[in-house]
């Protein structure tokens, strides 16, 4: 049992797994407690294995996930990965960058290029930010999403030049309109290969305007503006690489990325459009993260290591202080309940549910991604969140739930309601409830146990299992379960 006076290792490690992953099962948490907190941080940042359900198996069951043309295919494919991966932080960081560098399938029509972009986020997302920003600037999905193929020498399209500064690196207030223009000039000639062919395809076939295959980046020097430019005070025949170098050197960049990381991994921040006007919740934390950025040579992983090992991350005020995103609700529930040993049509329901709760993967509402925080919660989405979690954790056919029910139904006996509820909470990844919430569920459990004697016709064991299932369902219907 955890003590109430101080935060236990178990509580801290459950907290870490909710943030750096999708929450842990009791077994996972217990095994990490044995190796200790800092070793767990290392394990998450540098996982010994990176395995998930193999693509060839998935594609054998779901032809559409080879084609990856429409959202149910791409979104579900990612859900498989998040539910079954042994490297949850890799998926969490891909989700993080997908939110910051929000790219939507709807404009691009084909999904393969965004899946390729997401793989880049997995590969580079915890590494050097310079590599990542360069990768992003050369990413075909991003180029098309923000129209950089239309950014020509002598005919500037500012879309990418503006957003790389406003949304992807520094935030409003740290550069001028002139910098945007010069930045855009530096990215002229950064395009995708074979654009005329793609344009022809688009006219011929709007269902697959860019064909079936992923696109490639191409640098067209003949379309690049080689004139002198001045960007953030630096002059010369600047190209895109130079712009990225200059951006990465800025303290503003480090702070902006730190604030995003804080929002995703520590505590809910204000919506991004308010950041230029209102400072961060915890300025000291932002400086600690920014210092880690420079000390490590722009490493995102080191920013996170500094965060996870910091006092502000472990503080009581930070624990269970973030509203879970829809994907966290869905994937977290599924990882607890199990049942993804083989491909299952259930994955489409999981993907659609994320959309019903307001987070349709690969289809962010705008270039600004999802705001998160209280934006996730409305009466409609609340009902979806509660019903989804209680449906999944109420399905005793799922192996994880099956195990819980078999073990816990032995505890269903008169006078044992409090212990029964606590045992349920433990198996839900050491879910912590407010005392009054817990008491209400204990009362509910006592009433259910008391009602058992009258349940003629049902086998006693089956009735006991139903009691356990209903406690699990109610526990994940709480406000506390909505938080991470």
């Amino acid at each position, binding site marked *: 049992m955890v003590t109430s006076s101080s935060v236990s290792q178990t509580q801290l490690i459950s907290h870490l797994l909710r943030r750096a992953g999708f929450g842990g099962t009791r077994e996972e948490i217990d095994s990490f407690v044995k190796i200790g907190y800092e070793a767990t941080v290392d394990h998450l940042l540098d996982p010994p294995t990176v395995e998930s359900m193999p693509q060839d198996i998935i594609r054998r069951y779901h032809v559409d996930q080879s084609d990856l043309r429409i959202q149910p295919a791409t979104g579900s494919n990612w859900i498989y990965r998040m539910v079954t991966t042994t490297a949850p932080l890799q998926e969490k960081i891909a989700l993080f960058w997908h939110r910051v560098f929000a790219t939507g399938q709807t404009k691009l029509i084909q999904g393969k290029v965004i899946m390729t972009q997401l793989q880049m986020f997995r590969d580079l997302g915890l590494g050097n930010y310079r590599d990542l920003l360069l990768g992003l600037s050369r990413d075909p999905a991003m180029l098309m999403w923000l129209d950089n193929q239309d950014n020509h020498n002598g005919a500037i399209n500012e879309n990418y030049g503006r957003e790389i500064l406003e949304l992807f690196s520094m935030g409003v207030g740290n550069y001028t309109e002139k910098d945007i223009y010069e930045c855009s000039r530096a990215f002229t000639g950064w395009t995708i290969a074979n654009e005329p062919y793609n344009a022809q395809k688009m006219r011929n076939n709007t269902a697959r305007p860019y064909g079936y295959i992923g696109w490639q980046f191409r640098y067209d020097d003949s379309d690049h503006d080689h004139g002198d430019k001045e960007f953030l005070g630096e002059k010369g025949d600047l190209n895109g690489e130079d712009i990225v170098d200059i951006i990465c050197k800025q303290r503003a960049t480090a702070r902006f990325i730190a604030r995003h990381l804080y929002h995703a991994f520590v505590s809910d921040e204000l919506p991004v459009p308010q950041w230029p006007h209102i400072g961060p919740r915890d300025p000291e934390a932002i400086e600690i993260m920014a210092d880690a950025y420079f000390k490590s040579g722009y490493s995102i992983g080191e920013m996170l290591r500094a965060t996870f090992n910091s006092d502000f991350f472990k503080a009581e005020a930070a624990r269970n202080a973030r509203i879970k995103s829809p994907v966290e609700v869905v994937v977290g529930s599924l990882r607890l309940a199990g049942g993804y040993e083989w491909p299952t049509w259930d994955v489409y329901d999981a993907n659609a549910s994320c959309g019903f709760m307001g987070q349709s993967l690969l289809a962010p509402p705008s270039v600004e991604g999802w705001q998160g925080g209280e934006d996730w919660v409305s009466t409609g989405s609340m009902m979806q969140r*509660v019903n989804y979690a209680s449906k999944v954790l109420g399905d005793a056919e799922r192996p994880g739930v099956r195990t819980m029910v078999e073990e816990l139904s032995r505890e269903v006996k008169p006078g044992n309601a409090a212990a029964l509820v606590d045992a349920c909470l433990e198996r839900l990844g050491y879910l912590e409830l407010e005392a009054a919430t817990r008491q209400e569920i204990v009362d509910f459990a006592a*009433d259910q146990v008391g009602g058992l004697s009258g349940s003629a016709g049902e086998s006693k064991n089956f009735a006991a299992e139903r009691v356990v299932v209903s406690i699990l369902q109610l526990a994940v219907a709480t406000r506390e379960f909505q938080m991470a």
Partner: protein
Amino acid sequence: MAEKRDKVLVVIQLSGGNDYLNCVVPYENGHYKDARPNLKITDDRVIPLDNGLGLNPGMGPVKDLYDRGKVAIMHGIGYPEPNRSHFRSMDIWHTAEPTKVGDKGWLGQAVQELDPNGENVVTAVNFSNGLPRALAAPGVPVASVGDLNNYGLLTGIDGQQQREKALSTFNRIYSPAIGSGAVMDYLGKTGQDALRGAEILSTAPGKYHSNVEYPDNPFASSLKGVAQVHMADLGTRVFYTQYGSFDTHADEVKTQERLWHHISDSLAAFYQDLEEAGRSEEVMVLMFSEFGRRVKDNGTGTDHGSGGVSFLVGDQVKGGHYNEYPEIETSALVEGDLRFNNDFRGLYTDILEDWLSVDAKPIVQGQYEKNRPFVGSTN
């Protein structure tokens, strides 16, 4: 005499891009025939209307309502610099913000005006899963109902008695007395609103008595649900439904006709239901789509276009044509699409000001020419 009741808006969103030319068909127009060698609707199949125009063969019941003067056809509707992405264009219709990405829905803002203190959690009811952005606005509760007969919280708990007890526990653990901090309070209020909304809505089917038979198609249950909730007098002012997909890149003729059969048959039953209950006067239906489709067909279908058609249907609607049908001649087209001549924000202004009686300007952000399509609205 019927008592004076609050006016109610029912939206039917035609998702995917309803092809204007094969919906309200200029079947006598030579340019139409030229542009649609493979999928024109011919004289023998079209439902003739007037002015050289006809309706899609799937729209028979709409024609009946039109003949009774209950259908206003809003021609050439759209917005400047059309966007041909479903998602973005739908967003523009939802937020009434064509130039920048808006975050507040036009109807969400209307509901804010209708019920400023959020006293009634079912002022807006959406019949689908997930929240359409049209209804999104800070602090506006919206009930999103998949199936009215199985709507509620904790529907995964099997035993009825067990579920009732769980719901009463749910109510207590979401109460303001428990929990600390603004976020927990917000979650608590939202959870209790959701529970209250479900409780209120669950009373509707029981109060509903009608002899009208709705057709057996996937859309009918949405409009039947609207009728049930409306007649239960729960104070709902805005209903939202959607049907599709009208994204007919291929196999358009069969698909569009089938979808319109489903919608028209359902709409006819809904209208009859309201009339028989003496409740048709306060209800008005808006049907819209995010865009029309390319003028020239692609063989078996049509691609994304611009310039479309919307409909208003209701007892208090002045039936007929509003605005001109855009020119179909090739030289008059914009990038192969119809040129819109009727800004949708004008239609929104009609609905907001003259139907729901809320100030339209802050929502559509400006002044747009109205169509004045309601009985009693002056030209």
